């Protein structure tokens, strides 16, 4: 029997991941939890915390909205899609197809990335068209948006990999984890104003690096070196995917 070569596995793996992502986009794009948590939530949060803030410039407002939209939109897709597919047993189909678990989960991560990047264009276009904001480094902004969406989406995939069969079972704890990250990542309270210990905690949040990278790209300055931001985001992507794959190894041993 002829075995697949490493090259064939890798090249084919990307094709399979993209097939999963494009199918999911067509299938789940207008799913109510996706719209609620991914689109409406960041806008409501933005208005809740930004109204009547005299120190908030137009650029800062767009930066905040962009970071929040990326964060909520990309990290919502994973739990919604994985749990729905587990319930309908369509995930079993993928788990018994000739593709690795990391390839499968990377495909699911791409869904969140495409969804989030598409949605993030809305505040960006509004900022550019109506508030005439200036972008200091557009290429950096593009790279920051994609890398941030990837790490947040992988975070959502990790949440969705816990063996639950109801979206609510995972959305509740995932929201409880995501909200504190919002407050310690320099969006509503600048990192410099955080107490020392809380600032230490903020460094374990991918949102800290994503927001800082967006700040570098739009305003030309940030809290920490942009290189650190751009290295930490893919590191978080790999970490969350690794943790998700480990959870599925457990599923393969115990079932769900």
């Amino acid at each position, binding site marked *: 029997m002829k*075995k697949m070569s490493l090259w064939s596995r890798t090249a*084919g793996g990307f094709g399979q991941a993209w*097939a999963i992502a494009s199918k999911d986009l067509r299938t789940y794009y207008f799913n109510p939890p996706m719209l609620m948590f991914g689109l409406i939530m960041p806008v409501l949060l933005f208005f809740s915390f930004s109204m009547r803030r005299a120190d908030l410039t137009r650029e800062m407002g767009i930066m905040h909205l962009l970071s929040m939209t990326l964060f909520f939109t990309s990290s919502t897709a994973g739990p919604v899609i994985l749990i729905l597919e587990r319930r309908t047993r369509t995930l079993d189909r993928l788990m018994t197809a000739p593709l690795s678990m990391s390839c499968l989960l990377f495909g699911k991560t791409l869904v969140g990335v495409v969804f989030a990047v598409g949605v993030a264009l809305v505040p960006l276009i509004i900022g550019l068209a109506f508030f005439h904001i200036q972008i200091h480094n557009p290429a950096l902004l593009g790279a920051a948006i994609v890398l941030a969406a990837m790490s947040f989406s992988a975070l959502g995939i990790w949440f969705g990999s816990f063996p639950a069969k109801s979206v609510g079972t995972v959305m509740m704890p995932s929201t409880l984890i995501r909200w504190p990250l919002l407050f310690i990542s320099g969006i509503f309270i600048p990192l410099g104003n955080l107490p020392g210990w809380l600032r230490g905690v903020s460094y374990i949040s991918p949102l800290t690096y994503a927001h800082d990278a967006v700040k570098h790209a739009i305003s030309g300055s940030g809290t920490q070196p942009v290189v650190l931001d751009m290295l930490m985001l893919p590191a978080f992507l790999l970490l969350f995917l690794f943790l998700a794959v480990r959870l599925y190894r457990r599923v393969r041993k115990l079932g769900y």
Partner: protein
Amino acid sequence: MKSEELFAIEVRGLTKRYDKLLAVNGIDFDVKDGEIFGFLGPNGAGKTTTTTMLTTFLEPTAGTVRIYGYDLPRESLDARALMGIVPEESNVYLELTALGNLIFAGKIYRMSRKARKRRAAELLEMFGLSDKASVKVQEFSKGMRRRLTVAMALMHEPKLLFLDEPISGLDVQSTRYIKTLVHDLNESGVTIFLTTHQIEVASELCHRVAIINQGSLATIGTPDDLKANIESVQTIAVTFDVPEGISIPSLAELPGVNHEVKAKSGSERRLYTDSPADVIPAVVDFARKHELRIISLSTLGPSLEDVFLKLTGQEVGSITSPPVGEGKRGGKRGKGGMGK
């Protein structure tokens, strides 16, 4: 020189343990290339656990599985490329069209664009879904979804097809269709691993069957061999001409009768016995005594269902039978209480 026999599945010492529960207890069996292999068992016997391990979804606690020579789980990707899997529940994407589902299955199995289009058109035609190719699956009936699930499993032309309860809950037309399909696929060289609780299906379609009970294999062999091994279980089917309003007394007390099963309607009685020669005269005497006219009287060999019931510890004849008018056996005693 004798050529080496090719096995689709080789299982040795396959074990699955969940904490203190031993779901599958060191089972061994082989499935030959090109055969239809039935896998039967009552609820909780370890049937589904075994199948999910063979299809690579679940990892065994101990033991080895080889699919066409590929070791699981180490070479599971290569093994999966050779398998088609039809689960009990039709797991199609409701939001996609029939064509969309097939094309997606082709992409996941790394088929080229041209091959995907050709094969999808072929399968839509083969499964009578061509006119529904662009309809979203959420509008499909259960039978149509089932057909599409099978079509998706066949998209990449697998060598080995796992079918889990393929006709469960289907109407007569779809059932007949799937049975014919299983036969035809096998004729074209596809090895089939069929999990079912419908013993008449296994008896009708399978070259060999294995019966699993409480995590261990109770027996394995051809349906005829298994029936021959429990020849001690014989049945006498007797039908009386009964005037309306008259009820027939029980025949269970006749000498040599182990158990009696009454047909739900009609006047047929089935008498389970180890000694038909003693029971037949007793039945004739019984008819004379009660002034009943015998319409038919026949002895029947054990069915696969009898084998199943005997090996899984359930009482033979403990299930209610539908009316059977003919003397021919073919597992027509009803479904019994077995499930997945």
